[in-house]
């Protein structure tokens, strides 16, 4: 049985073929065999090849590149300890180094699967424009909700901070839900099926609580005196 001259590894940037010892003819042949054997699995992939100390000329490398692309793969990098090979790769417009493994980071959505339930989540951060926080239960947020951000909750929403984005409480249709914030100035406020916008700001922000009364969204300021009387 012919000894395998190449190994295939999965890396972040696609696939990496590592060539073993041997003449280029042998390695070249086993690269192609490997690719053919796993054609269906590899198809469409991005391929980097580490050829070790092999010295490759432009003819050989471009031939390999073409053969690889005939098999539905893209050769994007050739790694080598030989400067000649590196130079060849560069003239062909191929990379000669893999990037450092750095985990690709994307925005982490805070979405939870929507199930019915009464649980609340506590979020301690500011929601910036473009951020969507969705939760089936109640939402308590310590921080601001900036314009362009949104909170969608099955239950109540409490914001300890400025609420200037979009907020939807009782998103499942619960019109008994409430929204309260230290500064209640959302671009749009929805409770259940009711939609309201914030009237022009009058004076200093004050804590307010919004709820649906007689089919309309009504916001009531939090007043320490009246609270005291009721108790």
């Amino acid at each position, binding site marked *: 049985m012919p000894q395998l001259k190449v190994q295939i590894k999965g890396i972040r940037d696609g696939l990496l073929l590592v060539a073993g010892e041997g003449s280029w003819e042998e390695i070249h042949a086993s690269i192609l065999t490997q690719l053919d054997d796993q054609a269906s699995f590899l198809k469409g992939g991005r391929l980097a090849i580490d050829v070790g100390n092999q010295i490759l000329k432009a003819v050989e490398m471009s031939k390999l590149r073409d053969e690889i692309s005939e098999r539905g793969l893209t050769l994007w990098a050739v790694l080598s300890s030989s400067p000649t090979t590196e130079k060849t*790769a560069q003239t062909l417009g191929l990379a000669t180094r893999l*990037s450092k493994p750095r985990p690709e980071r994307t925005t982490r959505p805070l979405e939870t699967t929507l199930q019915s339930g009464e649980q609340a989540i506590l979020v301690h951060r500011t929601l*910036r424009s*473009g951020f969507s926080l969705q939760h089936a239960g109640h939402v308590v947020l310590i921080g601001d909700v900036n314009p362009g951000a949104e909170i969608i909750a099955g239950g109540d929403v409490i914001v300890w901070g400025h609420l200037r984005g979009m907020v939807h409480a009782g998103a499942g249709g619960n019109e008994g839900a409430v929204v309260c914030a230290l500064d209640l100035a959302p671009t749009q406020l929805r409770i259940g099926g009711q939609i309201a916008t914030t009237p022009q700001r009058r004076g200093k922000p004050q804590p307010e609580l919004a709820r649906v009364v007689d089919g309309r969204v009504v916001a009531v300021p939090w007043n320490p005196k009246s609270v005291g009387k009721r108790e």
Partner: protein
Amino acid sequence: MPGQVVTVTSGKGGVGKTTATANIGAALAASGQKVVCIDADIGLRNLDVVLGLENRIVYDLVDVVEGRCRIRQAMIRDKHLNDFFLIPAAQTRDKSAVSPSDMVRLCEELRPDHDWILIDSPAGIERGFRNAIAPADIVLVVTNPEVSAVRDADRIIGLIEAEEKGPARLVINRIKSEMVKRGDMLSPDDVLELLAVELIGLIPEDEHVVMSTNQGVPIVLNGKSKSAQAFRDIASRLKGEEVPFTPLDDDRGIFKRLARLIRPEGN
């Protein structure tokens, strides 16, 4: 000490990213630092024009990334400053010609020989922005005191935090103190209150900026204007110096005010 990578970005277009990059770079270089600016706005390059180096471009960023030239060959030396270089963007390609890992690799190569690597990011939150942000140590977000620009800055700051490149530092550009006083423009405090990030520069509106941009000479190199000083202050703050923020309207002396009372349209 290896160089620091500073990315200048904004989200919204036209708020002054390129002007800020050119001027902060020039201010750093004028103070004796080794600086290289990279224009990451592939397909819509501008930084070369602002620096007046348009006609010297032979190789560009994409040539470097695709291995058609060495990095040194693509670095254009500034006309006025010895240790100030530009790596221009390609004009005939688009953002997909470069990947974030290419940018990281490029900056790693530049770090040992330079104190500062400034990257001029394209507008938007797509590939070009990702490219520009990938190698950054420090991110400067430029905004104008306008609701739309602030909204985009907020989004960008969120993305920067998600990429764990934060905290971003804020440059508020084109402030008109007159309008702020009348209450017709967001004040720096309003902007900071919403964005809640560290402020690194307040730049007043200044018609000299337009003139210097058209001439291709950064305003910090020949200007005594307030905006030139504001850019120099940003450079100093990047270097870790404590520079107080100058009030925006203290050059309106009594004579100027009198003169304007007499001739309202004159300066």
